C-alpha cells in the first residue's frame, strides 16, 4: 500500500519533555508532512519504538534531566533499529561537544524550525530507509 501513496504520512517520534517545545515539534512534523507520535521521556520512546514498527524518524531533545542520558538513548536506538533516522537537539551541548550516532543530525537550541523541517523531509526521502520499511 505504501508504494501507491507517495505522500504517505509516515510517523515521526518526538521525544521532548518540555510541553511547549513538544507542541512546536508536533507542528514541525506536521508541516513536514508526517504524523507526529509523542513521547515525554526516553523510556516512553523505547516502548513506543517497540510497538510502532512503522516509525522511521526520531526527533529527540537531549536535555531531559529526568531521563537517562539522551545521547546514550540515541546511540541505543541507532544500534537496535539501524534504519531509523535520528535528529537531535540540545541546549546543554554544542555540535562539537557530542559524539553523534552514525547518520544522526544535530541542531542546537534554539532551533531553526525550517532547517528541521527540511532535514526531516530530506532524511525521509533516503531510499535505504524506504527499502527497509516494514511491509504492511
Amino acid at each position, binding site marked *: 500500500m505504501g508504494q501507491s501513496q507517495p505522500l504517505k504520512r509516515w510517523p515521526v517520534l518526538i521525544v521532548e519533555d*518540555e510541553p*511547549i*517545545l513538544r*507542541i*512546536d515539534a508536533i*507542528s514541525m512534523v506536521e508541516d513536514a508532512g508526517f504524523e507526529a507520535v509523542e513521547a515525554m521521556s526516553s523510556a516512553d520512546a523505547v516502548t513506543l519504538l517497540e510497538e510502532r514498527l512503522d516509525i522511521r524518524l526520531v526527533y529527540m531533545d537531549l*536535555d531531559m534531566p529526568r531521563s537517562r542520558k539522551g545521547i546514550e538513548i540515541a546511540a541505543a536506538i541507532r544500534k537496535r533499529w539501524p534504519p531509523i533516522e535520528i535528529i537531535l537537539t540540545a*541546549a*546543554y551541548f*554544542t555540535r562539537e561537544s557530542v559524539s553523534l550516532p552514525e547518520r544522526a543530525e544535530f541542531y*542546537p*537550541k*534554539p*532551533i*531553526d*524550525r*525550517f532547517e528541521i523541517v527540511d532535514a526531516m523531509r530530506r532524511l525521509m526521502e533516503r531510499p535505504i530507509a524506504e527499502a527497509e520499511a516494514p511491509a504492511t
Partner: protein
Amino acid sequence: MTDPALSDPHHPFPAVGGGCAETLRAIDWTDHPLGDPIRWPAPLKTAVQIVLASGFPMMVHWGPELFTFYNDAYAPSLGRKHPGHMGQPARAWWSEMWNQLTPVFDQVLAGKTVFVENGRYTPDRDGVPKEAFFTHSHSPIWDVDGRVAGIFLVVTETTSEVVAKRDRDVANAQQLLLNEELAHRIKNTLSVVQALAQQTLNKVEDQEAVRSFGKRLTALAAAHDVLTRDQWSSAGLGDVAKGALATFGEDRFVLSGPDVIIGPRATLSLSLMLHELATNAAKYGALTAPDGKVAVSWTVTGDGDKDMLCLSWSERGGPPAIEPARKGFGSRLIRMGLTGSGGVTLSYGPEGLTVEATAPLYQVQEA
C-alpha cells in the same frame, strides 16, 4: 647536688621563657635520662633557651630519644599535651602521626634541613586525631663534638588558610557549574520563546518576519554560547564572528584579524550586526552568487592615547550593491555598530557592499 644551677641566683636556667620555662623548672629531673639541666650539654641548653625566649612557635628534640622542649608560643596549639609532655620523647608526643614524622626526623638527623609548606597532619590535640596544616622547618642541632644530636623545629599552623582556600576553590567550582547551568537554562528559555512566537504567529501572513525573528533569536543564542565560555566576562572577536556566521556556511567567509577580546555588550551587538549583514548578503549580496565571498577583517590602531578597533565587512563576487529604499530594523541593527552607538559607514559599490565599523577599543571591551 640535686638542684644547684636551678637555684643559683646568678645563673638561673632557663633564664627566661614564661610559662614553659616554669614548667621546665618544675620538673623533677632526678630520674630523667637527661638528668639535671645544669649538666646538659651546652648546645642543648642554648637551643632550649633560644626556643623558650622566642615569640614564634618552636621546639627542640634532643638525643636518641628526641626529648622534646617547646615554648609558650607553641603551647596553645598542642592541646592536652601541654604542659604534661614537656621533656618527653618525641614518640610519646607524636605517636598518632609517627609514621609520617619518622622520615623527617631521619633526614634531619642525617644532617639535612626539611622544609614543608602547608603539610597535612593529623595531630591528636584533644583526644581525637584531627586534620591540620603546618608550614614547618626541621633542621639539625649539633653537639660540641660536631655530631647531629638534636632537631630544631620552627612551625606555623596554616589550617585556617588552607581550609579557607579549599572552601574558596569549592565555591568557585560551584559558581562555574552554576553559571554553566544558568547559561543552558537561558538557551532553553530562548527555545521556548522561539516556540511560543512560532505557535502564536503561525496564522500571520508574513511568515518571513516570523522566520527573521527566529533567526535573530538564534544569533542571540550563539552570542550567549561564546560568552558562556568565559563566564560572561569577555569573548574573542574571532570566536564571536565565527559563532554569528556559522549557519551561513563557513567557506563563504574569510575572517582575519588579531586576537581581540571584547566585552559582553559588544559581543551581543556585534553578533546581531553580523547576523543581519550575512542575512542581507544571502538575500541580495555576495552570498547569492555561487562564488561570492565575504571578507571580515579587523585591526586595532593606536590613535593618540586611545586604541581604535576597526572592523570591515566586504562582499565580493556577487551583484553590485544597491542601497535599499526602505530602512527597517535590520538596517538599524547594522548601524548600531560595535558598541550599539554607531560609527558605521556603508558603501554600496559595483563590486559589492563594504561596511566599516569603528569604535574606541576600551568601549568595545567594557562590560
